[in-house]
């Protein structure tokens, strides 16, 4: 086994947001949960969908669709929670669907490649790079950046 270089994990927990296929290093993921009841936080950043009670710990849920500037989830579709650890805190990423844990090396992708420059800026902002796989392109998520949403509310107002 080769020593992982910076930003290159051996295994990724994968998930979908809209039609994007993301992976986040397994080491950063604490757990994956079905949809959880949430308490909205008025006046917070739009991407903050609410607070979840995770066995007594209060976890902020950041909606990746909002964070990435993607259209809202279809009516009635409940997001899943990918709970990640970021800078000492536990944060939930709201995603559309959960995929498998994969090792890109098994599928011929040995290295992390830079994200294509024509990707939307919002997406590039939270992506470390890509791992091209035979039938998909895995976007490697930078969890720290993904959960880094400004505390100061937008002028457009937070969620109601």
């Amino acid at each position: 086994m080769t020593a992982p270089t910076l930003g290159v994990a051996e295994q990724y927990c994968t998930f979908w947001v809209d039609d994007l296929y993301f992976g986040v290093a397994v080491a950063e993921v604490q757990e994956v949960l079905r949809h959880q009841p949430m308490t909205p936080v008025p006046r917070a950043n739009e991407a903050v969908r609410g607070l979840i009670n995770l066995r007594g710990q209060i976890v902020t849920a950041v909606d990746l669709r909002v964070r990435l500037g993607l259209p809202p989830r279809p009516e009635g579709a409940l997001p899943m929670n990918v709970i990640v650890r970021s800078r000492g805190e536990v944060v939930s990423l709201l995603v559309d669907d959960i995929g498998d844990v994969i090792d890109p090396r098994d599928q011929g992708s040995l290295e992390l490649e830079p994200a294509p420059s024509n990707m939307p800026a919002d997406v590039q902002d939270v992506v470390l790079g890509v791992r091209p796989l035979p039938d998909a392109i895995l976007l490697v998520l930078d969890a720290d950046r993904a959960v880094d949403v400004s505390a100061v509310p937008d002028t457009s107002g937070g969620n109601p």
Partner: protein
Amino acid sequence: MDDDAEIIAEFLVESHENLDQLDRDLVELEQHPGSRELLSSIFRTIHTIKGTSGFLAFGRLERLTHVGETLLSKLRDGEYAMTPDIAEALLRMVDTVRALLEGIERSGNDKDPGVDVAPVQAAIELLLKNGGQPPAVEAPATEVVDTSTPSPDATEPVDASTPQPPAWDGVERRGVQAPDPAEPWDGVERRSVAEATVRVDVELLDNLVQLVGELVLTRNQILQRTDTHEDVELIRASQRLDLVASELQESVMKTRMQPIGQVWSKMPRIVRDLAHQLGREVDLTMEGHETEMDRSVLEAVKDPLTHLVRNSMDHGIERPEDRERAGKPRTGRLLLRAYHESGQVVVEITDDGKGIDPERIGAIAVQRGVVAREQLARMDTKEIIGLIFRPGFSTATEVSNISGRGVGMDVVRTNIERIGGSVDVVSEVGKGTTTRVRIPLTLAIIPALVVGEGGERYAIPQANLVELVRIEGEELRRQVERFAGAPVLRLRGRLLPLVSLAEALGGTAEEGDALTVVVVQSDDLTFGLCVSEVHDTQEIVVKPIGRQLKGLAMYAGATIMGDGRVALILDVPGMAQMQGVGAIAPENVETRGVLEGDRTALLVIEVADGRRAALPLDAVARLEEFPRERIERSGGAEVVQYRDGILPLVRLAPAIGLTDTAGRGEQVAVVVHEIEDRAVGIVIDRVLDVVEETVVLSEVGRRTGVTGSAVVQDRVTDLVDLEAVVARMGVVA
């Protein structure tokens, strides 16, 4: 004596730990006689014990460790080589030291005649005399130290002549009082100091507190569920769970308690240095070292308290010459006092300095634009003194590096209020100043009022809560109006700015025919928060929220409710700031004659079967009802347990010459009256109304406890002289 006892206890714990290490080191040293590292470690340990015992005047212990130290230093410096004889002597010294420590623990001194120091000391001295070699003849070095049968001749002469009775009256003694050391073991196990305490990682404690918080929440959930159940066994089990969880919570919270002495201990040095720097002569007295509070609270008040002490030295206590001129002793007095009161910790900082001159404060406040001249004119002395807590206020004519940067008192207050505490100042010109800081015992679990808005629940810390007001129908139109565009409520002659919680949360407020107002307070700002629902008050576990929300000043954190859902905790100062309440705060603004004709707000009550009486409303702190069986007796007085304290009760009817009819029913109505920081409960039949009337006092009906009577709401009403009532009943208020 308290201080000494504490130091001795610490010394014992530390020494016991050191001695265990010493045993291991010595044994290891025999195997590795050359180890410089081990020798140094042993030397340090003995040296420490010697130093402290000298400081605490344990002469025998000091002399013994002194010879031991000398021997060790020779070994360490390579003058002597380690031999079995030296090892033996050292081990015996350690044993004797331990025996002496046990004696100290029992009796507070090292004069235990059961411990024989002389032979060990002699053996070591002999070794030293012979250059580290064992003496040729049979020396006392082979004698066995026997702690149970003392050989009187061997005891040091000083001690033999004065078998000291135990002088120390500390708390560290466990079990039976100072047992005779020579007595055979009586089978009762006594735990020594070292065995009775365990050092625990703070992180582990924090973890425990968190887990207990979880348990409390889970218990709340279970209790909620079992309420609707009929299974007796389940109900019984959940009640037991309730009890155990509460006790566990209490015990765990106790483990995190630390005495304020930790902060106190730094004060003498600070005061000394400051006195030196400022050219003051100060006599510092500290009381209540043992007053305990949660370590997080202690951490949070450390700086504010230090600042207050600095302030007293800088602005309070005058220079010695000035004091002499004022006819006071040259040396100023600074008293720090800490105590528990009704579930809170109170810390008082009292100086006998020049006091705070309200006129000067007022003048400076106007000059610095802290307050407008017209506003000042309406303030009473207490409010004027309160101005020192306003941002941008500093009275030092010259900015010193001690205090006087103008960031002092407001920061002190902000920091103390952040942890749910309060600060107030009482001062008398020329006599001195007392600053009283009240702080909660713990931060982790606080009482809060839960309100509802937009289908979600929000918690408001009890510390910010003043009262709940509900206004309906006609009153709503009459009492709520727009003042310079902002809604205000006329409440007992004051204008209260109103903030709609719904609007503050980014929604729209519903117009209804009733309004529920939670009156909240932070700093010296009071405002009304209009909410759609009021749930209940409960103990909540404060949990931090993620950094994504840190910039939102309106939330202080979050908590988990009984049903497992998250609720946000509102930060009252933050809300006030966000809603710009401060800007329109018409603290005492009188408009359209709210107070015309000296109207007085009165609480109209019924006593003695239908007789009407009235109390000035500002004398009423709260209204309470207690079940009759909760009234207990203490001495000759009736009392009730209230808010972690004892509330003395006074029956109003007999106190004003009427027949007592209060408390015939299940519930007893009580008006809580606060005098300075004490409270008295006035037992009445029931509350009739709160009115605002122009009182025309008539001498008719004047008697003890009654100032006279007046027509209130078209009926003749006795006006109660509360002071007289309280005084007459001899309640120690």
